């Protein structure tokens, strides 16, 4: 739950009273043009940034008072696929399992499980520096979910990927929803949002300009792209 979130970065007031709520077993779309404040919102939810005003709660934990508890319950996948190049895919995932507070006795089992789930086995032993972008993105997803977080956040996850790799990410989000996860999907690709999201919030210049079930927002206008353009150019 995000309530009246305000955030200033340097001289820029990036967020101006952003509020929304995302629940279990849904894909929640955070839409907006570049610079709207989507990434700042996500970074504030996952405690990388502290809110100036307002309140954020993740599964009952306040980001200000219990940041480590929030981070235990959140997995984040970003467009910038950062993996440790000199570690193998498996070592990358295992490192984040340990940092994600997975008990040492469970690390191998968890790592094996995500490797199988994301079909990483064929390159699990290769150093990350030799992997393709799509393979690296799979490792990045595996790293984000290896501690089995109930909340998953995807920040423009397909922007650097080809069509096939993008589809795999979308399929993964749908599968996560079916597993009861709360999936927050930040994107400016409206076609993806229209197909995947159960509910959407459109942010423009740090303010929420539309909020509700995807179908409802789309019904109000002819389609999501029309509504988006109308709202951000208003």
């Amino acid at each position, binding site marked *: 739950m995000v309530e009246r979130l305000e955030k200033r*970065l*340097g001289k820029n007031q990036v967020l101006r009273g952003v509020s929304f709520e995302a629940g279990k077993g849904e894909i929640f779309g955070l839409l907006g043009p570049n610079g709207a404040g989507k990434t700042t919102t996500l*970074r504030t939810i*996952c405690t*990388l*940034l*502290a809110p100036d005003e307002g309140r954020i709660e993740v599964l009952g934990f306040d980001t200000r008072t219990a940041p*480590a*508890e929030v*981070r*235990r319950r*959140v997995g*984040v996948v*970003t467009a*910038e*696929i*950062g*993996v*440790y*190049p*000199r*570690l193998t895919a498996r*070592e990358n995932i295992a*490192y*984040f399992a*340990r*940092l*994600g*507070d997975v008990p040492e006795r469970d690390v191998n089992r968890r790592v094996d499980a995500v490797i199988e789930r994301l079909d990483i086995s064929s390159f699990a032993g290769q150093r990350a520096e030799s992997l393709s972008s799509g393979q690296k993105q799979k490792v*990045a997803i595996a*790293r*984000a979910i290896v501690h089995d977080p109930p909340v998953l956040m995807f920040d423009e996850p397909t922007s650097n990927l080809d069509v096939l790799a993008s589809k795999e990410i979308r399929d993964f989000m749908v599968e996560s929803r079916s597993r009861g996860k709360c999936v927050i999907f930040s994107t400016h690709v409206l076609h993806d949002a229209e197909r995947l999201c159960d509910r959407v919030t459109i942010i423009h210049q740090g303010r929420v300009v539309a909020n509700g079930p995807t179908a409802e927002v789309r019904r109000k206008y002819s389609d999501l792209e029309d509504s988006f353009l109308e709202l951000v150019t208003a």
Partner: protein
Amino acid sequence: MRWAWIVFRKELVEILRDRRTLMAIALSAIATPIVLTVVTQISSQTATQSYTVGYSGDVPTGLDTILQAVRLDLKPVADPAAAAKKNVDLGVVFTPTTVDEYYDPTRQSAQIADTRLQTVLGQYNAAKADAALRLKGIDPGILVPLRITAHPLSSVTAAAGNAFLSFFLPYILITMIITGGFSAALDSTAGERERHTLESLLLTPAPRSRILLGKIAAVTTVSLIAAVVAIASMFVAISQIKQTAIHVTLNPIAVPVMVWVAILVAASFSSITLALGTLAKSFRQGQAYVTPLYFVTIFPASIVLFIPDFNPSLAYYLIPILNAVLVLRDAIVHNAVDWAPLAVSTFSLVATGAIAWFAVLRLFTREALLTRS
């Protein structure tokens, strides 16, 4: 501590798979023996090299033979003073009762030739005076009312070895500790930002202080490995170079002092380089930040190279790096630990490390760490 241990292990694996770090360590292992071999060759050549003395007048009987024996070659010239400026190493005008010597002190060859000539002339004069007095039945001992008998308390070879170690070992140790960890420190800070792994790392529940502790421990370890490799190769090289007259053994007191000082220097400078790496947006920018650090820190240490008998007050031991070099030098030369300088140096290095730790922790926990990139 579990978090720090996890980060430490991962950082160490990554660092030891990094070609840049391995190259730096390997280079130090190779460079030290090469430098030592070259220095030994040059010093050996200097000792056996002949110098030319341009002279006019009559050379006193027998002096030419002695000069030849100490590799001072006599060459007749018209104007010894003019020749000494360029053509020969020394110019000498012999008269029946005087020797006028001309040399240019800015030329090292002139200085060495001058020392040899002064020694030879001193001995020649003494021998002549001795013979003249004996001819007249006078005891030549009257010329030396106070006879000096030297009793060296250590062997000349050991002294040479100590002198050699006292400036070479601290210099190599400090240089390798500082430079050996540069690449690793930048890779785990600026490199992390450049590779876009920093955000994922900070998203884990691990406290940032523990993440940093793991990184500092890894960089410290690599710095110490680099130093140990360089010093081990230095000892191997010394034992293998046959021409060297020096025999070096590290005394038992110097070893624990060296280990203690090395750990302190490595830990404090790891924090400093990590802080500078945290400020940088990329590995390349990080290099630009840490390179001046090397010169700033190594400059005071060089004092010991240029002034071997530098005998400082306790206040000098407050200067980081210089204090480490001085403490090591004292332990090697005197084979004893002077506790007051060691305590002051320890305080100084711990304080440096603590300040650097708080600085890097502050940098690592601020929001700008992510938003700047």
